[in-house]
């Protein structure tokens, strides 16, 4: 238990201390929110869909979570390059506990990012329809954060250095974000795109956020939470398995 705690607190300390990283990771969602939110707002409204900022904000929250969670999971590559991973691997602690501590730490950071982006989007003009549901939205943020941190850990177990990182971003993370419906409604999509979106785990996170924050649902909250939980479980299991196979 204490070992999980120390691994968790380490991730938090590292996050809070690198101000540049914190600011950098907030700049991107802010840019999306302002440029797309205000840029397309007029067109969106004319199409009779209501406020685009309101529609977009849950998607941008999902975006900041997926990016920071995967990044936190993949931090193992750094630890491996800078040698710190070895220190944890020769310690009398099971790999399972190391994995749990790291994942919780990364997920906490990603959730914090999500909450900060939520607050920023409120300044930009976003209003959740029912404040009492915000805590539930935060619970879903935790679930999505755990899911993608575990995913990042899993991917990182295959990579020896940072060269692969860009490829993962371009071929896995970016498609997951753009196909998730974070930026557009699921209704009226061409069938091919709609099918891809259905297989994108982030879609269910975005949908759950929309359900809880602006009362717009596509799959239904029950399905969202079920799919997210199952996939989180799968990623966690695979992540621990591959992490336990890491060799220095």
């Amino acid at each position, binding site marked *: 238990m204490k070992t999980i705690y120390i691994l968790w607190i380490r991730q938090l300390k590292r996050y809070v201390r690198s101000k540049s990283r914190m600011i950098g990771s907030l700049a991107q969602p802010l840019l999306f929110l302002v440029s797309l939110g205000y840029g397309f707002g007029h067109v969106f409204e004319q199409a009779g869909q209501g406020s685009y900022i309101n529609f977009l904000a849950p998607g941008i929250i999902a975006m900041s979570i997926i990016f920071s969670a995967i990044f936190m999971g993949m931090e193992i590559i750094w630890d491996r390059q800078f040698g710190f991973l070895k220190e944890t691997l020769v310690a009398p602690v099971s790999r399972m506990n190391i994995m749990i501590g790291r994942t919780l730490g990364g997920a906490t950071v990603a959730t914090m990012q999500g909450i900060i982006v939520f607050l920023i989007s409120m300044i930009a003009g976003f209003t959740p329809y029912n404040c009492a549901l915000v805590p539930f939205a935060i619970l879903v943020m935790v679930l999505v954060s755990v899911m993608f941190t575990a995913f990042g850990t899993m991917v990182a177990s295959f990579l020896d250095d940072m060269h692969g990182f860009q490829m993962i971003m371009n071929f896995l993370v970016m498609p997951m974000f753009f196909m998730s419906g974070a930026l557009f409604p699921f209704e009226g999509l061409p069938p091919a795109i709609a099918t891809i979106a259905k297989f994108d785990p982030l879609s269910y996170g975005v949908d759950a956020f929309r359900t809880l924050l602006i009362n717009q649902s596509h799959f239904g909250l029950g399905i969202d939470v079920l799919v997210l939980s199952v996939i989180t479980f799968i990623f966690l299991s695979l992540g621990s398995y591959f992490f336990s196979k890491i*060799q220095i």
Partner: protein
Amino acid sequence: MQNIIEVKNLTKKFKDLTAVDNISFDIKKGEIFGFLGPNGAGKSTTIKMLTTLLNPTSGEISLNGHNPVYEANEVRHSFGIVFQDPSLDDELTAYENMEFHGVLYGIPKKLRRQKIEELLNFVELWDRRDSFVKQYSGGMKRRLEIARGLMHSPKILFLDEPTLGLDPQTRNHMWKYLRDHNKSEGITVFFTTHYMEEAERNAQRIAIIDHGKIVATGTSEELKKQTNKNSLEDAFLELTGNTIREEEGSSLDKIRTMRRRWTGGRK
């Protein structure tokens, strides 16, 4: 005297390559043991097997009476290690790095605080305990790693080329700490180095490994006598030959790692 490390017929194969080939040796409790060999001879692979990071293909290891394969946790409590490359968290302070280690090794809070102070004083870093490790010089990092490695009062300390890139002052200081600790606590020291002079000065017994096989063991005097040479360096060259070893390029290393992972190696 009792043997704290016993290695019998230890072999490690990576597909087409035999990194460690049927080696056997014993190390006595409280001994300072030097493990020498050219690049790629199998030193690091042997250390990884002794320290539970790698499973042997065949052969047996007993470390403080425990088997690293089946009793990994007991073995991990028995040794401390200073790796070839630094393994500290740069974003944490020296104190936090020590604290992290102490918690991982399950040292109770009171004893932990006391040990951290004692050991940071021992390596003369107590005044800099709240500096971030990224502000430390190479020598300071090494000293911190030694303090960290000693924190859980291990019976054995492994040092993999601990003095690489350090100036003679730091090297001397470092070995002074280690010899002091060896005398006062009776800790066994197992180290690898490329500096023959360092091995001669500090090791009570030396083993020379080449192409995965141990080619000689003994005190530095015995090795010199055995080869009829005046210096350990000449004896070493006599035993291992003059050719420069092509260390496997990092790309090949990487492929091996990938291969191992895909074929389901071990933790």
